[in-house]
């Protein structure tokens, strides 16, 4: 009936047409007054339940996208990283005008992979999600690798994608290429949840549900696909009155381990002769490291940090990570907290012909307790769930949420005799870490003056400039042989944030920028040691840093290669006695010509220095870079470095 009325209004040349959206097709209200468009000279093709000429050409009043911005504000999204795209042009426009580009603020990126990876890094430091907005089909596919990293790393982000769902209103060619029947199918294997709401009320409820789901362990990205018509159309006043944005009420909880199982874990820990605690992605909040220290000190048990998060200060006397294998070899019980690879705790698969499964040197009576939320989000296709390994006690629940209960259970289980025994154990552990660290220090002395600049020199020259500052290092350091963990004092929960999740190269540069965004409001100096291979995956991140005045010091660990692959190809060729072949470096070097990252950074608007080839020049260059960052701007130093 409503349709007929609208049609008649059009045919009669009535200027006032009802504003309709897909969610409010039956709403009879008039949203805006505007002149009718001139009648086209060609016959119109009917547009199912809506006609272009049923809508006024100019919207006066609130649009669907405006309401979507209300929803994003309501759930606390402060930033949206995005490359613009026509499938979400309406919500883009609403964010920057209706929403005044504040909470959320639109952050312009030069690649959707950067948008998503920024969300990844931001959430790990801010402990809350931000959003990325990606173009229908093309943008989401660009973003997919960074989404996979975040999923594998169990980090939340809100992904908003546009889509022109209505075939009758899609423009030819481009909008068809950018539209999809089931957009979430592209990334469903590695998102926690998705929805494609067909009404504004549905958008509100789905977004709030998404926030609830993604911030509940196990966390992960969620995708909401925003229909183009829903964004662009005006909201009839009667519909607007009925729209409600749900609010998450009450105490937000995380899944915690079953109490009876936690008590059993406490019994096993107290009874063990040599328990070792192995946290991987354990720390979910900034309170986590202190809880872990409390448990370790209660038991006088060494901690071998998997470093998937900032779990424990690296200089804590019970942090035995530098003697990982020795600690595991002595253990009769391993308490694994949010582990990823339990199989690898007892078995090695060396990179040699036949890839044999070699049992690691472990006690025959070794028992393993696993506490983690991994099992609460099973997926089938991507294999990031790792190899199955049976454990002696598996507690399904978030490890940090379970920790207070475990600590109390251990206390309840302990007697005075246990206390004395544990203290004696602690005495025996003293000095072991120091010996291990002294060995690393000796290693560092052998390469101090080396050219290309060695990794320990690289990280210590940086440390010397930041050690008295409020600093944060959001990038991975395994490609610098983890030297910061050996030589620095890392004791704040925000100073490191673990690994990429799925080892997809190109994570560090944009994720560090997201982290820097979170650090900015705390006045922290963000230093990002990124590989040249990593930076080349997303060099446009430099422009985003400059454009949005995000302070960060990029230090390019420039070994002019994909060095991991240099090693792998050499190893493969050595197995086949072909290591001296003239083509041995084909495909692994980033050289000839050697990119000049300082010039690239300058081109994007950053203060930059380099290439720095002499280690003696490093201190002054870093000092200048830090000064720029302290002024609130990004800077980059290109450092010609040894492979690892």
């Amino acid at each position, binding site marked *: 009936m409503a349709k007929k009325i609208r049609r008649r209004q059009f045919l009669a040349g009535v200027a006032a047409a009802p504003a309709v959206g897909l969610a409010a097709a039956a709403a009879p209200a008039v949203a805006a007054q505007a002149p009718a468009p001139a009648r086209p000279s060609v016959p119109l093709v009917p547009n199912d339940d809506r006609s272009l000429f049923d809508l006024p050409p100019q919207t006066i009043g609130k649009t669907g996208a405006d309401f979507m911005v209300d929803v994003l504000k309501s759930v606390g999204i402060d930033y949206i990283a995005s490359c613009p795209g026509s499938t979400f042009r309406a919500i883009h426009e609403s964010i920057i005008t209706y929403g005044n580009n504040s909470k959320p603020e639109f952050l312009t990126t030069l690649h959707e992979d950067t948008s998503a990876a920024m969300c990844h890094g931001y959430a790990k430091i801010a402990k809350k999600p931000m959003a990325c907005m990606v173009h229908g089909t093309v943008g989401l596919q660009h973003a997919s690798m960074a989404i996979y990293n975040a999923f594998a790393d169990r980090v939340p982000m809100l992904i908003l994608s546009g889509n022109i769902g209505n075939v009758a209103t899609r423009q030819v060619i481009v909008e068809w290429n950018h539209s999809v029947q089931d957009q979430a199918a592209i990334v469903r294997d590695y998102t926690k949840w998705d929805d494609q709401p067909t009404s504004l009320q549905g958008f509100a409820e789905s977004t709030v549900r998404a926030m609830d789901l993604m911030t509940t362990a196990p966390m992960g990205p969620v995708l909401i696909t925003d229909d183009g018509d829903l964004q662009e159309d005006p909201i009839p006043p009667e519909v607007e009155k009925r729209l409600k944005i749900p609010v998450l009420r009450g105490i937000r909880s995380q899944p915690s381990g079953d109490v009876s199982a936690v008590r059993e874990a406490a019994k096993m820990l107290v009874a063990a002769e040599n328990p070792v605690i192995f946290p991987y992605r354990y720390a979910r909040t900034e309170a986590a490291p202190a809880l872990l220290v409390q448990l370790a000190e209660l038991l006088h048990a060494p901690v071998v940090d998997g470093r998937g998060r900032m779990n424990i200060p690296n200089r804590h006397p019970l942090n035995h990570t530098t003697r990982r*294998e*020795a600690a595991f070899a002595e253990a009769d019980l391993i308490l694994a907290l949010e582990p990823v690879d339990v199989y690898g705790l007892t078995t090695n698969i*060396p*990179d*040699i012909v036949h890839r044999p499964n070699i049992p690691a040197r472990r006690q025959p009576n070794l028992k393993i307790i696993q506490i983690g939320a991994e099992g609460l989000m099973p997926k089938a296709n991507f294999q990031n769930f790792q190899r199955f390994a049976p454990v002696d006690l598996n507690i399904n629940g978030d490890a940090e949420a379970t920790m207070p209960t475990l600590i109390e259970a251990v206390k309840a289980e302990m007697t005075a005799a246990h206390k004395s025994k544990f203290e004696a154990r602690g005495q025996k552990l003293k000095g072991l870490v120091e010996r*291990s660290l002294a*060995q*690393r*220090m*000796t*290693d*560092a*002395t*052998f*390469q*101090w*003056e*080396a*050219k*290309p600049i*060695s*990794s*320990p020199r690289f990280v*210590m*020259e940086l*440390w*010397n400039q930041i*050690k008295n500052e409020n600093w944060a290092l959001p990038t991975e350091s*395994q490609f610098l*042989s*983890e*030297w910061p963990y050996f*030589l620095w*004092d890392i004791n704040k929960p925000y100073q490191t944030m673990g690994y990429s999740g799925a080892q997809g190269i190109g994570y560090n540069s944009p994720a560090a920028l997201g982290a820097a965004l979170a650090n900015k409001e705390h006045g922290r100096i963000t230093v990002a040691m990124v590989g040249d291979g990593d930076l080349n995956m997303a060099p446009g991140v430099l422009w985003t840093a400059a454009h949005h005045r995000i302070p960060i010091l990029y230090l390019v660990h420039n070994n002019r290669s994909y*060095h991991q692959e*240099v*090693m792998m190809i*050499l*190893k493969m060729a*050595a*197995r086949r*006695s072909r*290591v*001296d072949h003239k083509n*041995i470096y084909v495909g692994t070097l980033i050289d000839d010509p050697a990119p000049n990252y300082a010039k690239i950074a300058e081109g994007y608007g950053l203060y930059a220095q380099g290439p720095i080839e002499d280690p003696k020049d490093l201190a002054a260059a870093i000092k200048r870079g830090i000064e720029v960052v302290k002024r609130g701007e990004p800077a980059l130093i290109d450092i010609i470095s*040894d*492979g*690892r």
Partner: protein
Amino acid sequence: MSNMRFIVLGAAVLFASAAGVVAQPAGDPKAGETAYMKLGCYSCHGVWGQGTWRDGPRLNPPMPYEAMVQQLRTPRYEMPFYVESQISDKGVADIIAYLKSVPKPVDQSVIKAMQ
């Protein structure tokens, strides 16, 4: 990794002694540097043999000649094989000469002062 270095070294010395390897030829550090780089030793062990945390133990100061030959011919763990056609025994001596020629380590106090 330091432990791994000593395990590898110990095992190599043991095998070498049992095999009765020939005396060490005179080494040429320049030729050794060329071989060290060409064979890709630097990629895991660092340009001066300083080692890396996970990928290759420190080779400086270098292990004895016999042990080095043994380790290259019948390596332990993930170290790839290097047969005679890739690097001769003389070439191994050259590599050792190169590793002995690189600058000496600095005093630890230099680094500790920065901590």
